[in-house]
C-alpha cells in the first residue's frame, strides 16, 4: 500500500514539473533543457532554510519560488538572445552550471554528501508524517499548480505565448514585446518547478545533487513530449505513464545493476518513436476541442451578442485631421546588404486616408522598405517619421503599437492556433497580457475579453471567415489564409496598414473579393500602402503609385501616368 502511495506521489511530483515545463516547451516553443536546475534550486533553497534558519515549509516554498524565479529571469536574458537549437545548448549550460554549484559549493550544499535530515513539513500546526498525508499534500499543491497554469494558458497572456511559438516575427509585428513574455514565462515555469523541489525535499528529507541532473531534465522533457506538448492534461498523462512504466521493471526481475540503464533506454526509445510516429504526443494540443476558448466566454456575456458590436466605433481613429496630410514620411532611407544596395536614398510619403501603391521590378526594395519602416531592419541612413514623430530605429513592437501594422508575403499566420485566436491575439492593449491580470481576472477583464471577442468576430465577419472561426488556421485554404491575415491586421486597430502583396497567388475571382475589402479601408479611417505586382490591380485600387527601382523612388503619380511613361514601362518589363 505504501508502495502505491509512493508511486502516486511521484506522479503528482512529475505532474507539477511536466505542467511547468509544458509552459516553456509546449506553449511558448522554448526548448530549454534545464528544468531540473529549477527543481533543484527550489529543493536546496527550502532545505537550507529549514535546516539552518528553522523556517517552515511554506516560507521555504516562498523563498524557493523567488530564487528560482530570479534565476529564471537571469538565465532567460542570455538564453533568449539565441533561439531554436542554440537555446538548447545554452540551457544545457545552465543545467550543468547549477549542477556544478550544487556539487562544488561545499560550504553550503555539502556537495556529494548532500543535505540530510530535512524536517517533515508542518502545516497549521499539523505535522505530516504518513505517506498518505503526503499524498494529500502533493495532490493539493499539484492541483493548485495545474489550476494556475491552466488559468495562465487560457488568458490573453497564454494566447501571446502560443503566438510566439508559432511565429515570433509576426507576434512582434502585432505590437507584442516578445522578450518580456519569454522572460516572464521562464520565471513562472522556474517558480513552479521550485514548488515541486520544495515538496520533494521535505518528502524524501535528504537531497543531493544527483537528483537534479541533466538526465532528470531530459526525463521531464520526455513527460511533456510523450504526454503531449501544448496541452496541460497531456503532461498529467505523461507523468503517469512515464512513472508507472519503469516501475513494472521491478516485477520483471531485472537485475538492479542494469535496471537504471534499461529505464533510460525506455525513455530514449519513447522520445525517438514519438517523434517519428506521434510527434503531438499521447494527448496533443488539438486532440479534443470540447470548448473552443471563444465560445465559452461568448456565452458568459449574454446580451452582448457580437452582432451588436458595430465595426465602426471599434475602428474609429483617435483623431482624423484633414485627409491628405502625410501620415508617414520617409526621407533618404538607405540600406545595404553586403555589396547590394536594397534601398538607396528612398523618399516617399503616405498621405492620410489614401491607398498608395508601391510597384517596381523584383529586387526594387519594396519589401525591404516595409522591413525598415516597421523596425525589423535598421537603416544605414535616413529617417522615418510617423505623424511628424521620428520613429527610426524603434523596435518592431513599438512601431506596431504606434499604429503601423504590416502583413507578410508569406502570411506568417499562427498555424496551429484557431482562426479566432489568430485575430484575438492581435487586439491591442489587452490588460490580460500582463501576468498578474492573467492570473487574477475580475469582471472588468472578462468584459474586456468579451469586447475583444466581439471585435475579432466582427473582423472575421468582415472578411467572411466567420463560419471558420473555430478552425485551426493551417486547415484553411490559401485564399482563406490570406483573408485571415487581413483580418488579423485589421484587428490591431492600426491606422497605417502596410500590405505586402495581398493578392499574390490568388485566383482572379478571389483577387476581386480581396480588392473590394481593401477598397473599403480608407472609409474606416485607414491609410494603406500596398505592394503589388499587377498594374491592373493597382489601377482599380489607388490613385497614387510610387514606382521603385534600385531602392529608389523614381516616380510618383497616378497609375495611368506611370504606365504611360515608356521609360518606366521598360524598367518594369525589364526591357
Amino acid at each position, binding site marked *: 500500500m505504501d508502495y502505491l502511495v509512493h508511486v502516486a506521489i511521484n506522479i503528482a511530483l512529475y505532474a507539477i514539473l511536466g505542467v511547468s515545463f509544458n509552459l516553456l516547451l509546449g506553449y511558448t516553443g522554448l526548448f530549454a533543457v534545464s528544468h531540473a536546475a529549477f527543481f533543484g534550486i527550489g529543493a536546496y533553497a527550502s532545505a537550507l532554510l529549514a535546516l539552518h534558519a528553522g523556517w517552515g515549509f511554506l516560507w521555504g516554498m516562498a523563498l524557493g519560488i523567488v530564487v528560482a524565479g530570479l534565476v529564471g529571469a537571469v538565465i532567460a536574458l542570455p538564453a533568449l538572445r*539565441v*533561439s*531554436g537549437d542554440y537555446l*538548447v545548448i545554452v540551457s544545457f549550460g545552465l543545467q550543468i*552550471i547549477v549542477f556544478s554549484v550544487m556539487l562544488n559549493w561545499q560550504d553550503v550544499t555539502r556537495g556529494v554528501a548532500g543535505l540530510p535530515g530535512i524536517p517533515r513539513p508542518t502545516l497549521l500546526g499539523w505535522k505530516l508524517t504518513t505517506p498518505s498525508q503526503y499524498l494529500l499534500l502533493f495532490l493539493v499543491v499539484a492541483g493548485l499548480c495545474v489550476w494556475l497554469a491552466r488559468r495562465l494558458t487560457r488568458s490573453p497572456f497564454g494566447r501571446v505565448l502560443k503566438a510566439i511559438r508559432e511565429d515570433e516575427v509576426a507576434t512582434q509585428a502585432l505590437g507584442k514585446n516578445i522578450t518580456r513574455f519569454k522572460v516572464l514565462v521562464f520565471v513562472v515555469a522556474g517558480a513552479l518547478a521550485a514548488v515541486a523541489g520544495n515538496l520533494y525535499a521535505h518528502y524524501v528529507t535528504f537531497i543531493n545533487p544527483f537528483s537534479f541532473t541533466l538526465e532528470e531534465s531530459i526525463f521531464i522533457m520526455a513527460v511533456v513530449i510523450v504526454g503531449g506538448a501544448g496541452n496541460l492534461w497531456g503532461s498529467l498523462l505523461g507523468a503517469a505513464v512515464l512513472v508507472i512504466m519503469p516501475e513494472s521493471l521491478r516485477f520483471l526481475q531485472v537485475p538492479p*545493476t542494469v535496471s537504471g540503464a534499461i529505464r*533510460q533506454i525506455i525513455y530514449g526509445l519513447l522520445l*525517438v518513436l514519438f517523434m517519428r510516429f506521434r510527434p503531438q504526443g499521447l494527448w496533443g494540443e488539438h486532440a479534443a476541442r470540447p470548448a473552443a476558448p471563444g465560445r465559452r466566454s461568448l456565452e458568459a456575456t449574454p446580451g452582448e451578442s457580437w452582432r451588436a458590436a458595430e465595426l465602426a466605433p471599434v475602428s474609429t481613429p483617435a483623431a482624423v485631421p484633414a485627409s491628405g496630410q502625410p501620415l508617414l514620411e520617409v526621407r533618404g532611407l538607405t540600406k545595404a546588404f553586403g555589396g547590394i544596395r536594397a534601398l538607396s536614398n528612398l523618399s516617399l510619403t503616405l498621405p492620410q486616408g489614401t491607398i498608395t501603391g508601391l510597384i517596381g521590378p523584383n529586387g526594387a526594395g519594396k519589401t525591404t522598405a516595409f*522591413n525598415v519602416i516597421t523596425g525589423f531592419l535598421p537603416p544605414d541612413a535616413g529617417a522615418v517619421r510617423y505623424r511628424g514623430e521620428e520613429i527610426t530605429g524603434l523596435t518592431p513592437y513599438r512601431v506596431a503599437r504606434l499604429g503601423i501594422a504590416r502583413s507578410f508575403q508569406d502570411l506568417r499566420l499562427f498555424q496551429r492556433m484557431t482562426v479566432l485566436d489568430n485575430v484575438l491575439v492581435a487586439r491591442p492593449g489587452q490588460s490580460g497580457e500582463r501576468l498578474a491580470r492573467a492570473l487574477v481576472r475580475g469582471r472588468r477583464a472578462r468584459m474586456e475579453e468579451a469586447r475583444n471577442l466581439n471585435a475579432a468576430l466582427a473582423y472575421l465577419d468582415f472578411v467572411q471567415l466567420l463560419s471558420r472561426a473555430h478552425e485551426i488556421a493551417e486547415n484553411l485554404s490559401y485564399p482563406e489564409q490570406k483573408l485571415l491575415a487581413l483580418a488579423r491586421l485589421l484587428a490591431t486597430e492600426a491606422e497605417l496598414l502596410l500590405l505586402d502583396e495581398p493578392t499574390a497567388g490568388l485566383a482572379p475571382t478571389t483577387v476581386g473579393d480581396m480588392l473590394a475589402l481593401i477598397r473599403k479601408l480608407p472609409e474606416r479611417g485607414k491609410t494603406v500602402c500596398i505592394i503589388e505586382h499587377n498594374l491592373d490591380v493597382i489601377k482599380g485600387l489607388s490613385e497614387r503609385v510610387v514606382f521603385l527601382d534600385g531602392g529608389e523612388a523614381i516616380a510618383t503619380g497616378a497609375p495611368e501616368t506611370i504606365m504611360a511613361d515608356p521609360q518606366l514601362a521598360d524598367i518594369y518589363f525589364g526591357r
Partner: protein
Amino acid sequence: MDLFAQLLVNGVVAGSLYALVACSFGLILGTTGTFHFAHGVVYAAGAYGAYFAAGLGLPLWAAAGVGIAGAALLGTLIEVVVYRPLRRIAASPLVILIASLGTLIVLENAIAIGFSTDAKVLEGFPRKGIVLGGVGFTTLHVTMVAVSLVLFLGLLAFLRWTRRGKAIRAVANSPEMAEIVGIDTARVFLLVFALGSAMAAPAAILIMLDRGATPDMGMDAILIAAIAVIVGGIGSVPGAALGALIIGLAQNLGVMKIPSEWQAAIAFGVLLLVVILRPRGLVGKKLRRAEI
C-alpha cells in the same frame, strides 16, 4: 611560469581532441542542418568498438581501425534509420533534435549494459614521458595533437580540392541549388555522416588509451563540441576548431584561478560570454535568427 607553460600544453592537448569532435559535429550540422546530438554516442562507440576488437586479440592499430569503421557505420545507420524518415515527413528541426537526444540516451545506456559503467582503459600504447623546458607530457599527448592536426588539415583539403568535398560544400550552401545542378543530396548526407563519425572516433580512442573511457563520455563530448561550434561560428570548420581550442585552453588555464572541478562550468561560461558579446560566433556567419 612553468605552471603556465604546462597548463598551456595541457590546454592544447585537450583542445585538439575537442576539435576533432567539434569539427565533425560542425560539418554534419553545417551540411545537413541536423543537430546531431547522437554524434556523442557515435564517438563513444568508436572507443568501445576498439576496446572490443582489442579484447578479441587484434593488435592496437587494427583495433583502432575497427573502432573507427564501427563508428562510421553507426553514424550512417543513425542517419538512415532515424533522421532520414523524419526529414521525409518534413519534421521540424526541433523534432529531429529530440529524436537525436533520444538516440543518444538509448545507445549510451546500451553501451553501459554491454560494457558496464566502469572506466575502461585500452592498453598497449608505447607511452613514454617527455620533459621539455620544464613541461611534462607523453608520446601519447604528441600523438593526440598530431592525429588531430592531420585529420583537421585532411578534412579542409578534402572539402577544398576533391570533387566530393566540393559537393559537400555545395549542399551546405544550398541543398535546393545542389539538387538542381545534379548533386544527390541524400548520398552527400550519408558521406558527411560517415566522414564525421570516422573523424570523431579517434578522439575517443585516444582518450581511452590515456585515462580510460566511460559510456557517458559522449554526452560531455557533444556538449563541448556544440559549444565550440557556436563559439567558433556555425558553418565554419576552422571556426569549430578554434572554438574547441579556446575551450580547451580556458578550462586548463582556468585551473590557475578556479578549482578544477569547475571545468564543465567554465566551458559554458565561455559560451555565455560569446553569446552575449558576439552572438554570431568568432568566425562564422550570423547565428540563425528568425528571418524576415
